[in-house]
């Protein structure tokens, strides 16, 4: 049946309108805000003060913001490797029909159901704590005093401690997507390979990985978005420590203030926060484009 073009437009209209109102308008407004100095989130337009690219220039000059960008790239890379290594491992193990698949899958996914704030308190106060934390206690029992004495949350370690704690909570989510992708691959391929005498390793690299490319590409984009918007863990782990601050948390500080007092000159600049938001959006778009370039989308039919 051939549909009238105007009917198509009519059916699309609600979705397009909603998209324009709740996505495009805020984005454009944020873009506009990033060129102004704005004293508060709800300031009237009359209170906005046009500063051109100054907000962006200031950001580039602030070592605090620059370190936040370095931090987030590190989180993306290190956290990405950690998460995907474990997520793949667990997904493959679960797909191989071990006993109690459902149970293990639930266990691995469990940390995702706990609020990030609660998880970070657990890690900070019960695992990394240097007097009665899990790590200290275990290492001391084992007689490894050098390891037991490590301050897991000091300036040198807090960044990696945060990545480990965060990755722990995120593995389950990506494992679930990858596992679903693996289960979709028809069993015939594996049977044929088994008959030909292929090992588990060969089957993983020659069948699972190539057929999982599309799913992996999607999860990678998802991970990139998650990593670039890394926020809660930065706030709970470091407060405003430059070793753990990320652009998203920096944006929050700029927009909502940071325990400010009247004597701090740059306590509030919503415009600067908006610039950070725009930079995060741009970075996400560029990263997604790069990922699409690296993993071209050729539909695999099976």
């Amino acid at each position, binding site marked *: 049946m051939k549909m009238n073009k105007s009917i198509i437009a009519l059916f699309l209209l609600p979705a397009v309108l909603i998209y324009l109102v709740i996505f495009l308008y805020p984005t454009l407004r944020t873009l506009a805000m990033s060129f102004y100095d704005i004293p508060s989130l709800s300031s009237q337009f009359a209170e906005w003060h046009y500063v051109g690219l100054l907000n962006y220039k200031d950001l580039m000059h602030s070592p605090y913001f620059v370190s936040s960008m370095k931090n987030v790239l590190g989180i993306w890379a290190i956290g990405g490797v950690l998460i995907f290594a474990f997520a793949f491992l667990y997904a493959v193990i679960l797909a191989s029909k071990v006993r109690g698949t459902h149970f293990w899958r639930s266990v691995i996914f469990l940390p995702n159901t706990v609020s990030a704030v609660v998880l970070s308190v657990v890690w900070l106060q019960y695992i990394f704590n240097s007097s009665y934390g899990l790590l200290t206690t275990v290492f001391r029992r084992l007689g490894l005093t050098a390891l037991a004495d490590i301050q897991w949350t000091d300036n040198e370690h807090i960044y990696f401690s945060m990545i480990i704690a965060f990755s722990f909570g995120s593995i389950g989510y990506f494992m679930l997507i990858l596992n679903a992708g693996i289960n979709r691959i028809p069993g015939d391929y594996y049977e044929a390979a088994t008959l030909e005498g292929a090992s588990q390793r060969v089957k993983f690299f020659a069948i699972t990985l190539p057929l999982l490319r599309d799913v992996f590409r999607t999860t990678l984009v998802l991970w990139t978005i998650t990593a670039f918007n890394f926020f809660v863990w930065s706030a709970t782990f470091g*407060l405003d420590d430059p070793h753990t601050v990320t652009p998203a948390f920096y944006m929050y500080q700029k927009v909502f203030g940071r325990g400010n007092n009247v004597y701090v000159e740059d306590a509030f600049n919503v415009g600067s926060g908006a610039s950070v938001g725009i930079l995060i959006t741009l970075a996400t778009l560029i990263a997604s484009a790069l990922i699409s370039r690296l993993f071209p989308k050729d539909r695999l039919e099976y």
Partner: protein
Amino acid sequence: MNKGSRAFATALVSTMLAVTALAGCGSSNDKEHSANSNAAANGAAANGNAGANGNAGANDNAAANDAAANDAGASGTTDAAKLSGKVVFWSMWSNTEPQAKVIDEAVADFEAANPDVDVEVKYNGRDINKLIKPALESGETIDVFEQDPGSALSNLKDHVLKLDDLLAQQGIGSDGKTVKDSIIPSLLGWVKSLAVPAGLDEGYYAIPQQPYAVLFFYNKALFQKVGITAVPATWEEFLADCELLKQAGIEPITFDDAYRDLFIGGYFGSAMGSDWTDGLVKDTTGELWKDPIVSQFANDMKLLEEKGYFSKKIAGNKYPAGQQDLALGKTAMYLNGTWLPNEIAATAGPDFQWGSFQFPDVSNGNGKGGRQGLSFGAQGLLINKNSKNVPAAFELLKYLVGKKAQEGMASQAVAIPATVDSTWPAPLEEAKVAFQNAKSNMPWGFGIDNGGDFSTGTVIPVFMELATGKLAPDAYVTKMAAEAKKFYAGK
């Protein structure tokens, strides 16, 4: 109107005009030198030794206002019975906290005296800090609300009502004193000093309550055990006490990540005052970091680290891990706000003997620091500028800062009463000395946080390198000077 009273009215009007003119002069002077925080000095001085610097004028002013209010019977001063309608109060406490109970009692008293007024209290807890601004901006009915005056005046300045008239009214249960005279003067002076830097007209926009000060809190039992009888007044005495504690196997000092700034600021504030410290973190050339006092600071911190006076755990302490060490008797001292005894009461237990002292005097300073400057503040009660029921809101506010409610806060919530002549809670008895010493207010962090991103991104982490022995004192000075220059290069 007969001749006599007309003459009186004329005299009154001319007195008031004169006083206003004087106050005008005062305020313009104030503006000149209150770019920072010293305006509070005036208020604090009024504490007892008046006449120091033009306070007489301020007192006259209050008296004149008072007289005017009584004479003209203005603005619903005492006719409480006439009040009616509804008052909505947004509190910063949650209804499980002891403070809420005290507020409930005050509201009950208010409603008993004003049967026609219906009070609605919303206990927001500290979520109020996120909720209040959007709520006020969207026009929600809120008459009275609680906020930290510093952040309220900078964030909500379009929503706050000037309360000067209220302060001239008679307080509740204050033995005939005005509200103004019933509240600790240094607190009122401080609240007043915030208005102009925030871009408001000079005046009072918040009634202070729940005052706090930043002090060293210590475990008295541990001090007594090692034979320390008096609190340290100077840095040298402080070091000697640390040595005694250390030799007895007690960790002298600890702090948490959330309060790292206090230790740096405390030292500089004590040596040079908070205006200098403010200038230090805002110095665009980096030259100020080469001042001998910075080098002295760096060497003193190295000493604390080398001798083991700092707990080894300061590097990794995540709030509240460090303050738990104090509560558990592992560490002797912790620099914090006066809310600490209440905050860790559950771990410390009822038998914990609390003591407190001001940051000890550091030598070779510029004479502007010392114990006359105190980093103190308070929570505040504010009235919405757009309140539809200002007279009733005024009246409710008077009950909340009345003597009975304030003493309730002291006895039930280990809070300092904002009213004068009230009994302080036992764990904070020694903190009273600091409030009496205070002549000028230093902002939170003694000014060290005023550099914004520079403070959080550079000052505090580089201090941690110093305090954990990873950076030598000379290297600290060089690094800070270079970092400051680099940070401000683009500005």
